């Protein structure tokens, strides 16, 4: 019964992959090897599609893998499998938080946790920015440090930043659209 199997495999992935979509990757490689549903090359292809389509990467991977293995019903089984552990765990935590929100120790804990959470998000943002705005492989020495700057990306980032500050009411989706159009017109990937 491949649907039950898909549900169970993705349930386990959802339960053990802590920390976002990319954490599901090692589980997928292992799953493909063990079950023969897909190859490592297919996982790499699925990742490329998941990253260039809207939606959380982990979810896109589950839907794509489920579809490749067993069609539309397979993708439903994989999707339900991967979100069910999250739903259960988070509902339990949210209910506990609601009960203890006004406890002074819980408040104290979150006083310390909030800046850490912001720090982790900032670090993730800096990592993304390093990959997008610099081409570290183009390094030719300190005297030519500018070779690592991706000028097109800096220019687009400056335009989008300016637009976001001037038109504060503009929905983020429009900024994403500007990025997509500029990227396609000015061949940002060089493709």
């Amino acid at each position, binding site marked *: 019964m491949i649907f039950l199997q898909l549900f169970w495999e993705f349930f386990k992935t959802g339960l*053990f992959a*802590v*920390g976002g*979509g990319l954490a599901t990757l090692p589980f997928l490689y292992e799953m493909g090897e063990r079950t023969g549903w897909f190859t490592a090359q297919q996982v790499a292809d699925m990742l490329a*599609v998941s*990253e*260039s*389509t*809207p*939606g*959380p990467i*982990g*979810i*896109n991977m589950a*839907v794509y893998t489920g*579809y*490749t293995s067993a069609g539309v019903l397979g993708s*439903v089984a994989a*999707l339900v499998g991967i*979100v069910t552990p*999250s*739903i259960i*765990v*988070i509902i339990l935590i*949210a209910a506990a938080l609601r009960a203890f929100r006004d406890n002074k*120790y819980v408040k*104290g*804990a*979150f*006083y*310390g*946790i*909030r*800046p*850490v*959470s*912001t*720090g*982790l*998000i*900032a*670090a*993730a*943002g*800096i990592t*993304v920015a390093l*990959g*997008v705005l610099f081409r570290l492989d183009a390094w030719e020495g300190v005297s030519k440090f500018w070779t690592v700057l991706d000028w097109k990306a800096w220019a687009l980032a400056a335009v*989008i*930043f300016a637009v976001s500050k001037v038109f504060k009411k503009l929905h*983020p*989706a429009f900024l*994403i659209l500007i990025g*997509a159009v*500029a*990227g*396609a017109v*000015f061949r*940002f990937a*060089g493709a």
Partner: protein
Amino acid sequence: MKIYWELFVTFFRMGAITFGGGYAMLPILQREVVEGRGWCTNEELTDYYAIGQCTPGIIAVNTATFIGFKQKGVPGAIAATYSLVLPSFIIIGLIAALLQNFADYAVVQNAFAGIRVAVTVLILNAVIKLLKSSVVDKLTACIFVVAAVLSLVLDVSPVLFVLAAGVIGVALQMRKGAAKK
């Protein structure tokens, strides 16, 4: 019933316009849920991200479950979560069925490289907003810098950072309580 419809519309839209993972969704969550609907504050969003990074599952999904639960309990949590993932289901299903080589098209690769620049700017803007609510004094400013630098330099699980910060926060609270007596 109105709240379920609002949850569906809001999270469906977010699922359709978020490119990337949980971090890329943050600016859109701030816009739709904090500023648009008023369903939670920036502080609560920071808490959800902290918990989402330490618990199993995908951060974006965990955050949707949290916000849905806050609005309408267990049914709200389920409604928000499935609304968020529905666009993925439709779009990926279509691509898997019709456009197996979608990611190989030059226009897709170029557009996506542009989208990554936009998402970078959006994340940095979002972090600035979060700083205003999470860094409230000198101590929290120190915790923020230490966490950001350590997480960039060391390959350590975020769970450890969050647990350590929670312990520090509780310890401070206990000391404050002791000082009052």
